[in-house]
């Protein structure tokens, strides 16, 4: 008898990372899954695992979406000579576009709020991209509006990748992140918990995991307030809701306080040796809430979440030396 799709996925286990490759973009995805032994002690009987997305070549989960978006545009002939790829970004997608663009020979222009961290500006600039700054008072929605304006003004100059609307963003996770989680847990995953930025990760991954096993619970995380400090996460009630956001694939939403996410980011560094960004802290804090609930009900579970990027992406170098208090 032929194996079913979900059985086939389990036998298709590949080594986590290529040891030799033709191009840097071949290193996108296939990230390791790490068990959070110290954190999960708070929820006896439940396992907590995290995808190390900081292992992607440009350092964040956004490499997956950026690669699929750029490849799709190239295949459809949308990036003819003289046309630049443009998108609005709060940072990580910009760095990912910058890496993919450099590797595949695509000129890139990024629209970012002026208050993105200095390392993000420096890293994107190092890859040779053009940056246009939007108002620091208007956040990522201000960057979205400015990108729209630029494209409307000179439509022939740009290919507007629009990560908030581009189906290739969730599709990247549908085709890579979800099958990897399925393989790496041997099909044992019971809960998937992660934050909403563009919503690409949670929507694409949840859609596929539900197809593989409808019993898997998929839970999104949003900041609990419009004025929050979980950089990279979006508070949808006060934001432009991304067109790719599809709540029908989500079983629940956790509203995360900034302090809980920040405290968890510190704990991950000290207890697990994982120095990750605040959004990763928020993700693990959400995963721990789910795990504690299961544990309190006397249930077992395998909870999987996402470590979006490393903590050093948020250093402000000179100021750090002045004992920067977050």
């Amino acid at each position, binding site marked *: 008898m032929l194996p079913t799709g979900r059985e086939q996925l389990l036998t298709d286990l590949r080594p986590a990372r290529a040891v030799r490759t033709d191009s840097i973009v071949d290193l996108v995805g296939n990230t390791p899954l790490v068990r959070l032994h110290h954190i999960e002690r708070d929820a006896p009987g439940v396992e907590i695992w995290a995808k190390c997305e900081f292992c992607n070549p440009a350092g964040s989960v956004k490499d997956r979406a950026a690669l699929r978006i750029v490849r799709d545009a190239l295949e459809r002939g949308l990036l003819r000579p003289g046309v630049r790829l443009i998108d609005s970004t709060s940072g990580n997608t910009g760095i990912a576009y910058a890496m993919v663009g450099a590797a595949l020979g695509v000129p890139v222009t990024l629209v970012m709020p002026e*208050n993105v961290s200095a390392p993000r500006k420096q890293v994107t600039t190092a890859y040779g991209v053009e940056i246009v700054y939007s108002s620091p008072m208007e956040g990522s*929605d201000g960057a979205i509006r400015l990108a729209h304006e630029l494209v409307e003004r000179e439509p022939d100059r740009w290919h507007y990748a629009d990560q908030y609307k581009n189906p290739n963003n969730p599709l990247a996770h549908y085709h890579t992140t979800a099958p990897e989680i399925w393989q790496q847990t041997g099909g044992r995953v019971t809960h998937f918990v992660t934050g909403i*930025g563009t919503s690409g990760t949670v929507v694409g991954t949840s859609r596929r995991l539900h197809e593989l096993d409808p019993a898997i619970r998929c839970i999104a995380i949003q900041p609990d307030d419009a004025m929050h400090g979980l950089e990279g996460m979006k508070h949808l009630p006060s934001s432009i809701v991304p067109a790719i956001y599809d709540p029908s694939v989500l079983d629940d939403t956790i509203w995360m306080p900034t302090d809980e996410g920040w405290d968890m980011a510190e704990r991950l560094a000290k207890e697990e040796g994982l120095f990750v960004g605040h959004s990763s802290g928020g993700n693990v804090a959400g995963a721990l809430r789910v795990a504690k609930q299961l544990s309190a009900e006397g249930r077992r579970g395998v909870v999987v979440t996402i470590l979006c990027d490393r903590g050093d992406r948020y250093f402000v170098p000179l100021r750090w030396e002045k004992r920067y208090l977050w």
Partner: protein
Amino acid sequence: MPNVRIPTPLRKYTQGREEVTIAGQTVGSVLDGLEQSYPGIKERICDEAGKVRRFVNVFVGEDDIRFLDNLATAVKDSDEISIVPAIAGG
């Protein structure tokens, strides 16, 4: 009077205004004045102990008040105070 730049998530308190002018000699007194004019706004910027929340950045001109005198930082009428939140996703 110093000009205060209000970020998008706090404009629901200021009837949508992006900038307001508030009297005060220090950042702290300007924030107190802001609360008097727009009740409820200060607790979004400061915690229960009255300190600026760790994820909110307050600038006088180009300088983060953490590297000046925090809430005791003196301000002149010509100064511009910016309240800058973290950046949302993508």
